[in-house]
């Protein structure tokens, strides 16, 4: 790889999860001085109440960390904090764990869309092109069930995904996977000018190990390549799809951790 290409790959992978399309109307995005925080009082979903990038110094005090967390505790919502290998202080993750956070290991991955990944026999993947289609209802029902979205998050996603895929120039594409004709999984892509962010992969319980995930990736690569988008990026948890995605030919750009803290309970 050339230095310029390395830099572009890193930039694409790092900024993959920045998805302004999924902000609720009351979301506040606080950006500056190396920080990117999203605060969404209406959302019970930690992904919408997160510190995506932070810029504490080596000598950050506990009070500085607590002030960030309190921003979310004040609205009574769970929050998550993404901690990268270059973040300071070096013990930031440990200090979040000491505050009761849970921890998830995540890989930021990338691939070129001309990857020769093949569809698997028995699996068909259908692009979902309209919110009025049966495929859209099926996709949403299954995604909501698979991820266990709370009712108001489910309602928000249905409305927002419909708006995004029906747009004149959509920035979101959904793909519904079927195994022997039965709806069995799905995956999404957010479209950027030279790449796509693959996200939201799910396989219905009972349909695992049947090639759904590989086929959903292959179909999206083919669609993105046909649209002239060179790269695909995605962030996956090691407890989830990340190891599979690497076996599909993706490269790990960097590893990081997501720490999640629940709001204090009343009376604590």
């Amino acid at each position, binding site marked *: 790889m050339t230095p310029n290409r390395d830099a572009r790959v890193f930039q694409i992978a790092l900024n993959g999860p920045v998805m302004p399309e999924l902000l609720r109307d009351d979301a506040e995005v606080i950006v500056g001085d190396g920080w990117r925080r999203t605060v969404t009082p209406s959302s019970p979903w930690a992904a919408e109440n997160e510190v995506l990038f932070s810029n504490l110094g080596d000598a950050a005090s506990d009070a500085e960390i607590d002030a960030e967390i309190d921003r979310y505790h004040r609205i009574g919502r769970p929050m998550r904090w993404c901690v990268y290998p270059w973040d300071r202080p070096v013990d930031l993750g440990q200090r979040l764990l000491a505050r009761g956070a849970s921890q998830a290991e995540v890989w930021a991955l990338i691939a070129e869309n001309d990857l020769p990944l093949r569809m698997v026999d028995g699996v068909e993947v259908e692009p979902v092109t309209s919110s009025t289609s049966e495929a859209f209802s099926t996709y949403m029902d299954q995604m909501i069930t698979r991820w266990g979205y709370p009712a108001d998050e489910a309602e928000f996603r249905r409305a927002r995904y419909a708006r995004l895929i029906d747009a004149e120039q959509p920035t979101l594409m959904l793909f519904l996977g079927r195994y022997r004709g039965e709806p069995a999984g799905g995956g999404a892509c957010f479209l950027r000018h030279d790449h796509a962010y693959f996200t939201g992969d799910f396989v219905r319980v009972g349909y695992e*190990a049947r090639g759904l995930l590989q086929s959903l990736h292959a179909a999206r690569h083919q669609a993105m390549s046909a649209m002239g988008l060179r790269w695909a990026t995605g962030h996956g948890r090691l407890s989830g799809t990340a190891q599979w995605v690497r076996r599909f*030919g993706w490269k790990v750009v960097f590893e990081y951790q997501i720490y999640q803290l629940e709001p204090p309970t009343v009376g604590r």
Partner: protein
Amino acid sequence: MDLRDDLRAYIQKEIFKGRVPAAFDDDFDLIESGFVDSLSTMNLIMHLEQVHGVEFGINDIVPQNLKSVTALVGLLESRRG
């Protein structure tokens, strides 16, 4: 232990967890019978790589190659050349 014996032993211990179905033989379909999921498949692949020293291509890890002892033997022998 030869390849087939190793696969049988691994499947009986790690996939069936010791409760081996009466119908289990080298053509028993591990996928359609519902015994494997995403995690157990990944663990099986890692076992094959570590114990048998093979490397798989990006299109190798498909149900047709993983569904039974016979299919797994075929996959491993093809990767060993």
